[in-house]
């Protein structure tokens, strides 16, 4: 295929956008440029086929090959079935019913913070993670479920209290079955046994006992676990000269330091988003990523669910230096460089009456400050200002003071003692450890989890120091799930148990404790950090004994067994949240700190952020997360440097107009002597003169999936400036690099696909919120479908969708959807049944953003059905557009005829796990598809069938809420509603009766069952002109 591309002409795009009349939604720069290549992508369902036959194959040869493959195809089907076995247990546990899943409560941690989960287990094999609605960080449809209510469990075994999750939690189960996990202890690149390690450990500890632990250093990630902390404290009592350090790259140093400045002690701020009428976020991506974001997204959505009787909504202002999920759903968004975000905060402080000297701001930014300040002041005690980790501690402190000045403390924000056991500056800790390693005082270094050789600040040269320490003969140990960059530099590498294999405990963002309960015996001889510390204390207890005896010791009462069982069952230790502290910020120290903020050097500014999917690099080998299109850029398998269109133009940087893979310019980022080569991504909404780089890529020893992808942004990260820096220079290298972004895939040619309006318009005339084409029902040639049973349908509320992608991964996990790799994504062959389309509206520099999840529409008059020559896609009576894999011969006519482009074709044998361990992951209730077969969203028909069968056994209809699709369960904002639309009381029928309800491409009259609620924004009239 000829690939002739020209570079995007940003001026032309700008002109076109400016010249557009009326509402104008666009998906990508390429679409606006309307290049020939883009049209080609648009018009062909599968634009990049394998090379045409003529190129290398003669007609006769082709016929011969076809004949042979046909004959072989016939033969393979004649093979007798192998004799298969039934292996019953010897003693059947009481609660196990073969063929029915069980759900166990546990917790997933990221950055130390626990999120409650329920894990689906099929005969002892965990396959799917759901949220636990009893846990404060993973609320369900009705919010956080109270503990004193008995758990209602559907007869088919599904707990009713399914909660929401994020993409990380969903994907964490893939890591359990990752064939690249390390499977044995390794001593200096030689496979060793645990026995060997225990002997070596005993010798090292004996040596340290003699010097009271003077040479012993322990490095962990953030610890919130009470029982692990107790072990570490015991160890430090036994070895008083030893030190325990914590470090992870995405830490909360700035937040903690901010509270230290403002209140004189480290505190944890807990936001009550649901109580806030007006929210201002300064570089805080609170809806995505951290330990509370699922809860915050849920709370945020409770005030944005627009129905006919809605009278008010909350309002969200976001000032940010990188387009994020939170910014994408803001009513007003202002892109500013990081230093200007700080200046904005100071100006705001002044505007709400704090005695600060505000730096001068450009006029339009100052107007923003004034308008926002007025809005906040009009909602005293019912508003909230949040600040992101990337802002300096002084600004954090200032925001606490602003919230105090606005009367929000105790209302929309409360403070508790820190959740971390040891709330320290982790950057300070790793620096101290590096100094000690440099001075040669470290004789035994035990690194429990984490990957400091890869992700410690560049100026510390941690990898070199670690290597030298090991070479000097020190006892260095690294416990981790993969033999990674740090393991390679230690004397010992120990395989770590996955959290679904081991006991533990963790605190949530509000300090609620969950017991981490294993679902399966360790797949390999691995240990948890609890067990290693216990071994350092000279004991050999199991994780279960460690955690249980800790809690038994604390409770000390005779009914412990009963409460322990209840904690495990509920997934939450009742009453373990920390009490709210009454605090008041000390203005003088806040102002003092603000004055000390040093000015940012001239030149480009740079923000360093964790990757939205790969985080700090720990998920690098997780194919689900690698292939998940990143929010907003929709990039897969790579990180790029975000750069604004204007800055790109100024620096002469460009991207190609077409093809499914984007050829982009490479740049060299230079900062303080560090040089990193990286591909650019022209990002609408990125502030000018400010680039954003993402951590987590450029791994050297991540595993087969994650090694050597992207560039390593840690090389640009210094211990005195973790998140934002100035004085960066960019140089065009002249090279080009292919990036696989899905933003142009499955494009529906920009018809009336999304509808957006303001709350005022909705209140004024809800019935004309959406311009309707024609009146009433359109006529159809096909007969009307008559059925008095269930009519399954879905409504997606686009006001609530934040584009976090949790649904996409949940769908992937539930439905055995394979990953295809970067090269195949670049050909438009990604297999996700559910995609989240992102639309822009307005100019190039700060467009509004809308998200629209698109699963199969299950059209009542589905265009895919009549074109299938073999009847492989047909309708069910309940309204499902069924896909029959065994009938499919792969003509792809259905897909060509699908107006919504929701069908996915197995071009290759994607679902061919050469590693048997990956087969354990598959959901046994869903067929694993082979090559040459079409597939698509089934509305989770396996869940529908399970519910229907149970209801039929009881002689009743399926009740509303009994069928919860995987995407629906995962959604933090509950934007996805599924149910029986023939039942008038069902949530889905109610949603369909809303005035702002619409279907995609309604004019085609295919009667989609999946429909949408239009996006309702709540802009401030004073800023609306912007």
């Amino acid at each position, binding site marked *: 295929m000829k690939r002739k591309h020209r570079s995007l002409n940003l001026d032309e795009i700008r002109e076109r956008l400016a010249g557009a009349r009326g509402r104008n939604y666009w998906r990508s720069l390429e679409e606006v440029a309307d290049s020939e290549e883009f049209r080609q992508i648009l018009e062909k369902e599968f634009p990049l086929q394998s090379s045409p036959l003529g190129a290398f194959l003669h007609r006769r040869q082709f016929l011969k090959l076809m004949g042979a493959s046909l004959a072989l195809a016939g033969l393979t089907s004649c093979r007798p079935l192998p004799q298969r076995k039934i292996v019953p247990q*010897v*003693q059947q546990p009481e609660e196990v*019913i073969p*063929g029915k899943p069980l759900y166990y409560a546990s917790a997933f941690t990221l950055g130390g913070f626990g999120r409650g989960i329920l894990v689906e287990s099929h005969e002892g094999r965990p396959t799917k993670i759901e949220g636990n609605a009893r846990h404060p960080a993973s609320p369900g449809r009705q919010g956080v479920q109270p503990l004193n209510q008995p758990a209602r469990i559907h007869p088919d075994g599904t707990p009713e209290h399914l909660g929401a999750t994020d993409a990380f939690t969903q994907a964490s189960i893939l890591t359990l079955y990752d064939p690249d996990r390390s499977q044995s202890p390794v001593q200096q690149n030689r496979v060793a046994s645990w026995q060997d390690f225990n002997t070596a450990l005993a010798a090292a500890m004996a040596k340290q006992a003699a010097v009271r632990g003077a040479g012993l250093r322990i490095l962990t990630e953030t610890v919130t676990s009470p029982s692990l902390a107790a072990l570490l404290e015991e160890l430090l009592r036994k070895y008083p000269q030893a030190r325990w350090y914590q470090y992870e790259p995405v830490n909360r140093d700035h937040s903690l330091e901010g509270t230290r400045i403002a209140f004189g002690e480290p505190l944890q701020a807990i936001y009550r988003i649901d109580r806030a009428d007006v929210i201002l976020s300064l570089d805080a991506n609170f809806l995505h990523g951290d330990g509370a974001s699922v809860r915050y997204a849920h709370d945020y959505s409770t005030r944005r669910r627009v129905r006919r009787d809605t009278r008010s909504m909350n309002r969200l202002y976001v000032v940010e230096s990188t387009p994020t999920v939170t910014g994408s759903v803001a009513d007003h968004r202002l892109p500013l460089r990081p230093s200007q975000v700080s200046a904005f905060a100071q100006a705001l402080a002044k505007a709400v009456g704090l005695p600060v000297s505000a730096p001068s701001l450009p006029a339009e930014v100052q107007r923003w400050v004034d308008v926002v300040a007025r809005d906040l002041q009009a909602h005293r005690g019912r508003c909230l200002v949040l600040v992101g980790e990337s802002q300096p501690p002084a600004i954090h402190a200032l925001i606490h003071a602003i919230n105090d000045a606005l009367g929000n403390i105790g209302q929309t924000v409360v403070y508790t003692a820190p959740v971390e056991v040891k709330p320290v500056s982790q950057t300070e800790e790793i620096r101290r450890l590096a100094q000690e390693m440099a001075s040669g005082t470290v004789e035994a270094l035990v690194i429990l989890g984490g990957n400091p050789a890869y992700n410690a600040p560049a100026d510390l040269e941690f990898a070199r120091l670690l290597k030298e320490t090991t070479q000097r003969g020190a006892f260095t140990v690294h416990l981790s799930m993969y033999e990674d960059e740090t393991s390679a530099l230690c004397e010992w590498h120990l395989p770590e148990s996955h959290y679904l294999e081991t006991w533990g405990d963790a605190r949530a963002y509000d300090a609620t404790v969950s017991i981490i309960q294993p679902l399966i015996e360790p797949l390999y001889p691995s240990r948890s950090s609890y067990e290693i510390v216990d071994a350092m204390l000279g004991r050999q207890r199991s994780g279960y004994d460690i955690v249980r005896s800790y809690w038994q010791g604390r409770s000390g009462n005779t009914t412990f067994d009963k409460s322990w069982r209840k904690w495990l069952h509920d997934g939450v230790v009742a009453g373990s949240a920390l009490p709210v502290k009454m605090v008041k910020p000390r203005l003088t120290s806040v102002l003092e700190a603000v004055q000390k903020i040093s000015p940012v050097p001239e030149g480009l500014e740079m923000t360093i952020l964790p990757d939205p999917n790969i985080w700090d690099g720990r998920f690098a080998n997780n194919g689900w997360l690698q292939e998940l299109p990143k929010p907003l850029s929709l990039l897969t398998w790579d990180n790029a440097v975000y750069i604004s269109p204007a800055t790109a133009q100024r620096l002469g940087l460009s991207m190609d107009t077409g093809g499914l893979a984007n050829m982009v310019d490479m740049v060299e980022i230079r900062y303080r002597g560090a040089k990193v080569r990286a591909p650019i991504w022209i990002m609408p909404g990125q502030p000018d003169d400010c680039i954003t780089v993402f951590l987590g890529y450029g791994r050297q020893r991540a595993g087969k999936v994650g090694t050597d992808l992207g560039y390593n942004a840690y090389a640009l990260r210094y211990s005195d400036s973790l998140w934002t820096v100035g004085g960066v220079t960019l140089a065009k290298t002249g090279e080009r690099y292919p990036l696989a972004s899905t933003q142009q895939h499955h494009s529906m040619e920009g018809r009336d696909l999304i509808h957006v309006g303001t709350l005022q318009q909705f209140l004024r005339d809800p019935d004309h919120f959406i311009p309707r084409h024609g009146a009433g029902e359109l006529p159809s040639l096909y007969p009307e479908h008559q059925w008095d049973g269930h009519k399954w349908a879905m409504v997606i509320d686009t006001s609530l969708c934040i584009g976090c992608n949790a649904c996409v991964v949940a769908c992937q996990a539930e439905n055995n959807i394979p990953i295809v790799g970067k090269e195949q994504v670049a050909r438009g062959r990604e297999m996700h049944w559910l995609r989240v389309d992102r639309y822009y509206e307005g100019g190039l520099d700060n467009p509004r953003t809308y998200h629209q999840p698109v699963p199969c529409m299950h059209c009542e008059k589905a265009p895919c059905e009549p074109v299938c020559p073999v009847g492989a896609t047909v309708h069910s009576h309940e309204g499902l557009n069924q896909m029959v894999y065994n009938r499919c011969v792969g003509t792809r006519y259905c897909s060509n005829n699908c107006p919504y482009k929701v069908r996915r074709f197995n071009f290759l044998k994607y679902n061919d796990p050469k590693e048997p361990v990956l087969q354990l992951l598959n959901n046994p*209730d869903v067929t694993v598809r082979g090559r040459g077969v079409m597939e698509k969203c089934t509305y989770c028909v396996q869940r529908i069938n399970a519910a229907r069968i149970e209801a039929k056994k009881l002689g009743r209809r399926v009740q509303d809420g009994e069928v919860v699709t995987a995407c629906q369960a995962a959604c933090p904002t509950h934007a996805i509603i599924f149910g029986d639309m023939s039942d008038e009381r069902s949530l889905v029928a109610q949603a369909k009766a809303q005035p702002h309800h619409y279907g995609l491409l309604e004019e085609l009259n295919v009667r989609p069952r999946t429909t949408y609620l239009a996006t309702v924004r709540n802009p401030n009239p004073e800023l609306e002109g912007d």
Partner: protein
Amino acid sequence: MPQVFHRSSNTLARLSIVTGAALLVSSVLIGSNLSRSPYVTKVGAPVDQPVPFSHKHHVKELGIDCRYCHSTVETSAVASVPPTHTCMSCHSQVWTNSPLLEPIRQSYLNGTPVKWNKVYDLPDFVYFNHSIHVQKGIGCDTCHGPVHEMNITYKAQPLSMAWCLDCHRQPEKYIRPKEEVYNYEYKQPKNQLELGEKLVKEYGIRKEQLTDCAICHR
């Protein structure tokens, strides 16, 4: 110019057309019949098991109910083969020294499961659910045949899709009162179709829906 072909060539030519056609037809017939024959479907072929378990002895002669061993048939998709413990609930008392039962005793002592050979094996893309069938009046022997007469268990039905659809299209041909589901001596009454229609209605079976693809395939 002499004739190239002998006169008999005409006959040969005609013959080859006829035999060619006959071969084609017969190969199709043979193929389609063979694939449906017990040679391929294994209907009626006893399957060797680690322990020669006799359903005839346990069911007919001793009168043990199906559900004593296949305990999840009413609750789950699978009827389940009993754990070793179930065998030992009797065989710790009776036939304690029988050499035939050695694998069972070993399993119980060592905690290693017995690996039974599957007799009824559906392809992985078919999702059959026992519990709904027994709830809606499909007797065990409708699919499993005269199990109470089997010394070594064999497959009684071909398990082809056509066979499934025979009942899914016309359940009234096979349905029986719920309370007769486990009665292996149940005989269909003369007015089966009449009774069947009544039961189908009574049990709330939506016949149209039974042939939806996603009922069995997902």
